[in-house]
Structures are given as C-alpha cells and as structure tokens.
C-alpha cells in the first residue's frame, strides 16, 4: 500500500542536530574538526567584495574612450584613495587647461574599458564573520566555505518567525499552553532572555517585551494585523530573518489565538533556565526553512520521551495533529486511510483519513490537513 506523506515540524526532546555554517563567499575557516566551540566562537571569516562605483572617465574628460589609456594615472588593480587623480587630459599645448578626474572613493582601480570609457572602482572589502550559533563540536570542515557544527540538544521548530539569530536563557512566562502573554508577565528580569508563552501575544505586549530588552519571544499565535503594524508593511512573500525590530519572534502554531502544542510547551518548560540559540528566519517556498529553538544539552543527556512532530510515513495508528479548522490543534490517531476520494463540508472531493481523537470520537479530515507526530 502506498503510504501517505505529510510535512511536519520537529519537536525533539533530545537530538543530535547539525548546523551548517557557511560563508556567503569563499574565505577562511578558523576551526578544525573535533574542536569544541561555543555559540559565539568565530568559525569562519571572509571579505565580501566592496561596492562598485562605475565611473565614466571618457565622458568626464571629454575624450574618446580609446584615447583614455595613455591618460590614466593608475593601473588596473592599483589601490586608490579618495580625491586621488585617476586620469588627466593633455591640455592645451600639453600644458594648459588640463582636466583631472579624481577618485570619489578609497579602494581599488579595478578595470577600465576602452569601448565604453568606463572605469570600475571598487570600495574596500567588507569583512564578514560567522559564529558557531550553537555550543557543539565541529564535525566537518567545508574547505574555504564553513563548517558543520553538531550539537546534542533539545530541538524545536516553529511554524513562522521574524528576526534573526539570538541567544539567551529560556524563561517561562505562562504556566499553561493556552494562557495569553499579558503585560504583567513582562517583568524587568525578562531582559536578555528568551521568553516562552502560551497561546497569544498582542502587539502592545510585544512592544513592552521589546522595550524591556527581551531577546526573543516564543508563543503559540500572533495576529497578522499586528505583524503588519510591527513591520510597517504587509508581508507578501514569506522570506524572513532580516527584520530589525529589536527582538526575534517565533510562532509555534500560527496566526490568531492558538494554544501552543502541549508537547512543545512541556518540553520548553523542562528546559527553563538553560541557554538556547534561536533563529526566526523562515522561508516558505521551495527549500522551506522554519524558525527554531536549539537548547544545547550536556553530552550525557538521554531522552526521557520521544515527542517528535516530524514528517514521515503515515499509517493506521499513526499519531497526528490537525493543522486546519475545524479541528485545528486537535491530536488523534489515524483510524483509516480510505483510498477513494470523499466529500467534505465544502463539497470538495478530497483524499481523507479517519481520525480518532483522544475523547474516542472519529472524524473525517482531509489528509492534507494533518501533520504527523511521532511517538
């Protein structure tokens, strides 16, 4: 029998997770295989080519491009300083009314083109460094490109996030997964921490968290209207991670008021007080990227439970969670996987499964509207 296959999010109590830390361009790797690193260890470094300034010397001197080479005072590849002469016209009788073209930037005189009369000047390179992001061990060096860091950790993927990589101590601000993060829960001691809430945070409370200096907020749901207010525009294509709003926000369930999955909440509760690395970067397109919370653990930590919401094969008895109304968030077991299409409330004929929820009742749900939970 063909198995159904469904995407899902990973929520692992204990896992060995590999993170590839790659430079945007070739550069220098600063660590070796086997090195134990901290999240803030610089693992690789490179220099991005500086910005380019196109500069038409022929136009500026009023001379045909082909005549320029003999007027150049700099050779290709030579360093230049701002206001340094790059070329000079011959002037009248080789003496008077000479025109000089000066460099507008510090950098390098990269190329000159005799057809267009254009010089390419490049600003000094921009240094780029990448850190380890998580505490762990270097398992692979990608020569000239970066490293792979493996960490023994608790690993939780969210569904959507904004803001980039940050670190901090995990702090629970709600006692239940269906509890809202309210203003009174944002106290001074939240500063520099990653706060974990329940089902919802409003815009005003989020602002308070940012003002307090909270490094990241992990919560079940948030309103789209508030996202628009926060970003200042309507997010069209979901490619995030570079937003600068003073914090990082990770939603574990979605938009609106959404109870955080119990397994996720309990797991993060168990790790309260530990240092975590989080990243809000999300890309919902081919090569999907989800936001994540990584809590490095001592090497000898063993799993007490396996509550991994993860993709894989679905069969009778598989645990699933509904990810769209009317059963959003409900957990159950697959009772049947009928191969024939069936009609649902919308009158659409779709591939379905029969799910038995915890209270024993069975319902028909489109297969596309569930995600697998392992264990």
């Amino acid at each position: 029998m063909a198995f159904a296959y469904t995407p899902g999010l990973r929520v692992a109590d204990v896992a060995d997770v590999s993170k590839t830390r790659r430079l945007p361009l070739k550069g220098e790797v600063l660590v070796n295989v086997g090195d134990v690193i901290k999240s803030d260890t610089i693992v690789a470094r490179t220099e991005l080519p500086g910005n380019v300034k196109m500069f038409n010397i022929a136009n500026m001197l009023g001379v045909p491009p082909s005549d320029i080479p003999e007027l150049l005072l700099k050779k290709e590849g030579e360093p230049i300083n701002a206001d340094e002469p790059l070329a000079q016209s011959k002037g009248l009788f080789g003496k008077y009314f000479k025109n000089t073209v000066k460099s507008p930037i510090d950098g390098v005189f990269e190329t000159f083109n005799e057809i267009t009369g254009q010089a390419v000047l490049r600003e000094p390179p921009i240094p780029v460094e990448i850190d380890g992001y998580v505490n762990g061990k270097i398992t692979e060096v990608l020569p000239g490109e970066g490293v792979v860091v493996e960490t023994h950790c608790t690993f939780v993927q969210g569904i959507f996030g904004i803001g980039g990589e940050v670190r901090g101590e995990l702090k629970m601000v709600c006692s239940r997964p269906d509890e809202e993060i309210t203003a009174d829960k944002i106290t001074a001691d939240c500063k520099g921490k990653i706060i974990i809430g329940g089902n919802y945070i409003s815009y005003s409370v989020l602002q308070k968290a940012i003002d307090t200096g909270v490094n990241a907020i992990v919560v079940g749901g948030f309103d789209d209207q508030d996202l628009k207010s926060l970003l200042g525009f309507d997010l069209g294509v979901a490619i995030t991670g570079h937003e600068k709003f003073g914090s990082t926000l990770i939603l574990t369930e979605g938009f609106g008021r959404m109870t955080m999955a119990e397994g996720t909440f309990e797991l993060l509760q168990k790790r309260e007080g530990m240092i975590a690395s989080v990243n809000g970067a999300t890309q919902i397109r081919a090569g999907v990227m989800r936001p994540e919370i990584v809590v490095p653990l001592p090497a000898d930590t063993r799993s007490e439970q396996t509550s991994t919401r993860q993709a894989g094969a679905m069969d009778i008895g598989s645990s699933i969670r509904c990810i769209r109304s009317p059963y959003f968030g409900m957990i159950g077991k697959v009772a049947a996987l009928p191969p024939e299409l069936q009609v649902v409330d919308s009158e659409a004929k779709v591939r379905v499964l029969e799910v038995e929820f915890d209270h024993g009742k069975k319902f028909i749900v489109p297969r596309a509207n569930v995600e697998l939970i392992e264990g």
Partner: protein
Amino acid sequence: MDAERMQTILATDCGSTTTKSILIEYSEEAGRYRLARRGEAPTTVEAPAEDVTMGVLNAVGEIEDLEGRRFLKPDESGVNVREGSGDGVDLYVSTSSAGGGLQMTVAGVVKSMTGESAQRAALGAGAIVMDIIASNDKRLPHEKVEDIRRLRPDMILLSGGIDGGTIDHVVELAEIIRAADPKPRFGVGFKLPVIFAGNKDAAGAVKEELGTTMELKIVDNLRPVLERENLGPARDLIHELFMEHVMAQAPGYARLMEWTGRFEDGKWKNVPIMPTPGAVGKLIENVAKMENIHVMGVDIGGATTDVFSVFDSGGEPVFNRTVSANLGMSYSISNVLASAGMDNVMRWVPFNVDEADFRNRIRNKMIRPTTIPQELEELITEQAIAREALRLALVQHKDLATGLKGVAQERTIGDAFEQTQTGATLVNMMDLDLLIGSGGVLSHAPRRSQTALMLIDSFLPEGVTMLAVDSIFMMPHLGVLSEVHPQAAVDVFNNDCLIKLGHCVAPSGFSKKAVHLATVTMVMPDGRTLEEKIIPGEMKHIPLGVGEKAKTVITPIKGLDVGSGPGEVWEGELEGGVVGLVLDGRGRHPFNLPEEDAERVKMLQVWSQTLDTYPERFLTMGGGE
C-alpha cells in the same frame, strides 16, 4: 516501444505544492486513449524529504492502490517502464515547476525594446523573470550590481543592440554582470550560466568581460533588427541550461530525470522533463491552431499564476505567455492580499467577514501551504482570493503581451507578437473565443459553476465567450505527452481534459439609463424559441447541456457591443456545457459592483444563487440573513 503499440502511459507533474499523476490507457472498446486514473501527493522537494522522487512515488502509489496494479519497480526505486508486456508502463513523462522553477534576470539596452524581447524569450522558455536590467532603467550601476547579487538568479540572459548596432552599451551591461559576480543558488563552486543573445559584433567584447568568470554561452541575436524578434535560439538554450545546471541541482531531480522515457527498439530513450508552464503553453497553442480561434488559458498554482493567450493579429495567430511569479493560492497567497489590497479581496466574499480573522486565515494558509479548505466558509474565502490573483495576473499579461515597440514587425507563432498599433496590448477580450481555466482552485472547485463565476469575475470576458476548465488539472501532463505521443495527448485532451462550461454573453459599453442591455433570442435544441433580456446588474442562467447548441440572435441596445460592433446584431450559435449559458448584465467598461457593503453582499448572494454556486447555507454565514 513504438508509439502506436503503447497501451499504458504514466505522466506526472511536480508542482510547488502537489505532485499529480495520471494513468492513460488505450481502450480497445472506445478505439482511443483515455484517462484511467489519477493520483496525487504532496511535493517533496523540501526538508525533511528533500527529494522530489518521493512525492512521485507516493502519487503513483495512489494510482496503484486505486487500480490494484503495479506501476513502480518492485523495490519502489522508480517507475517501472517495461520493454514488453508485464507490470509497469510503456512510457513515463513528467513536467515540473517545483523547486521555485527557473528564476532569471534578463538584460537589454533599452528596457522597452531588447529588454522586453529578452523577457519574452525567458518567459517563453518557462522562466520566472525576476528583474530586467537595462541601460535606461534609471538605476545607477552600483544599484544594478546590488540587485543582481541580491536576487541570485539561476541564469542571466544578456541581450542588447541590433546586429551592427550599439556595442558599448552591451559591454557596459556585461561589465555590470561581471562586477556583481552573482553566485548560483545551488552550490558555491558552480559558475553561473549567462546567455548572450545580442549584437553579434559585441560578442567578442562580451566574451572578454565574462568568458572566464561565468559559464558564458553565445547564441544568435534575439532582436537582430528592430522589426523582428528571433527568440527561438535563446529559448532553446535556456531549456538546455535549465536541465543541465538548475534542475539537475535541485533535490532528487537527477534521479527523476533518469526515470522519464521509454524503450524504443530495445534501447532506452530518455524524455526530458519539461517546465510545467512550457507544457501548458504548448497545449494552448495547439488548441488555437487546431480550432483556428482566439484562446486564453490561465493556470493558477500554489506559487505562481501563468496566463497564455493566442490572438489573431494582422491575420496571424500570436502566442503569448506571462508568469506572475508571486500570485498563487498557497505559498504566494499572502502576496495576493498584499498586492490586491484587503478591500479588493473582501469585495468578493458574499457575507460579512471580520478583517482580523480573515487575515489570520490567509496567513495560516501561507504557513501551511499544502492544507485545503474543509469547511464551506473557507472555500468561499479562498475563491475570493483566487479572483484577485487571476485579475492581477491578467493585468500583468495585458501589459506584456504587446507588439514590438515603435516598429512594424513580423514574428512566428510561439516566438513573438505582432502588432496593430505600436506597443498596444494584443489582448482583446471581445475577440476571445475560448477561456480555459486550470490549476487546483479552478479544476478542483466542488461545483463547476464556481469555476465559471471565478473566471467571469476575474477576466471579465466581453461579448460571446466559451468558458472551459481543465477537468482535473492535467494540461501539463498532456503538454509534455504531445511531444512524444501526440495522438494520446489529443484523445485525452478532447475527451477527458477539456470540460466546456458553456458560453458567457456579456454586453460591453456604457449606457446610463438602459432598462436592458441586449435581447437574446435563442432557438433551443427542442425547437422552442426563448427570448431573454440582459438586465443591468443581473445575471441569468439558462440550462443548455454539453454539446447542445442554440441558434441565437443577440440585439444590443445602441452603443453596446456583443461582438459585432456597437449596436450591431450578433448572429450565431451559443453552445452549452456543464454549467449552461450565462447572461451577464453587470457591465463591461465599466464593470459594476455595488460600493456599499450590504448592497454588495446582497448582490453577490443573488448572483451566486442564480448560478447555484454554493449550498444555500452560505446565506447564513458571517451573521448574514
């Protein structure tokens, strides 16, 4: 195996959200090929699977379940393409738009001339054009450099200059590309493919600029003279490089590319995977050619919406394709909302909606793009969004499907456009004979009348237009199949794929005090004569079944046009379909939707009831009635 001896054909389309499989078999009884089964599964190019073949195996596995036969190899390591008899299929073909498709940046000297020609060449090859760099695009050189770097295209098409024309502007563009030094999305070590299809006299200088740092290929100029485009060579090379450099790098494609093909005289013959839009375009073009009519097709997917058109210009059919890269029903659904605006989307919802809740619903679809509406209310709101995605895609299509700017020109079908007026759009909704809808939201709408109304609301066809739908979304499969086995593709297209919904009649033009817009007199198949008035603001539905025709005279009032010119009588045959005839009195130029909310909701409900688009219970939604 010879094409004429093939009994069983399998085709898949790997979309950005779903992988669809169809099984085609030769029926001795019918004496033709027919669609036997269909299956689908989520596409698996993404983590954790990161292998497109898993989705293919699952989609084919569904067919196996339904059919009770085996089409996969025993160890499920691929599709079992057989040499003789036994389990398996005789031919396996596939199309793909997964992995984000082919993303290109194009460059030309003048944006509206060689820039636009380059854009058309890329679009014709099935690419998404992310940016058009031109000497006159008003960006500073360093801004162009930054944009190329930021967008990280899969490929760059550099054109510019007619043969014997400007060299320095073309070299300047090459300089910009070299300065940007963009890296491909896949793999740090690869060189980015750059195609030069510009002034042949500039080829040497371009090679000097880019020859060492890029994977430079040089082909014939795509605009050798101002009056003519020559898009074929550039388009073919784009296909070739797409397979070699882009698709082969995407997760699992290298394996899938080995699966597609057939045995011919005992030897394996590979059939290349075709980009989905290329396959659909091919089919639309064929329909226009075979029937000698003006056709538009729209394929609304999860990430993109493609619009295809063939209009007659100067006596020659002219094919056009555009892709709206960020208009779609799953990955791009939030972008539809951002582009169209909340008010434009909400105007199609026939009940009152809480805006905050509505926004959250759309976002939740975006973050879980593979989910589908289980409840009626969610279906209705998704169909409202689809109307705006389709409308915006048509606007973009009209903007690009224009004649060559500033000159008279000649072009061949599939390559170019002709013009009757400098740079004017070639899309004329009054001339349109057939409008075909495809893609999940149109093909899988629970009632075909929903599809009809979505097409009418978004495209606003004028005069007399036949509406049709790709029955279960298999035009991509048939497009690629037509390359290998035209007979099977034609058989299935005519009998199983194209579902005619019925003619739509919509008078166009403005009349302030009209009591009615036109009188429609029909001689029905049973011999009785039916006379209907098209009333302003009203829609009428007249039952007329598939293949049934009514000899018709349409008399518009003075100044209004139904296809024969303002105030002129139209005579011909109206044909029915699974929906029937639709008489649309809501106006064209202008189209009128009530501005006041309560009135608008009331009218949407009336129109929906007229066409029986939703179960009656939708009237009580959103606290209505």
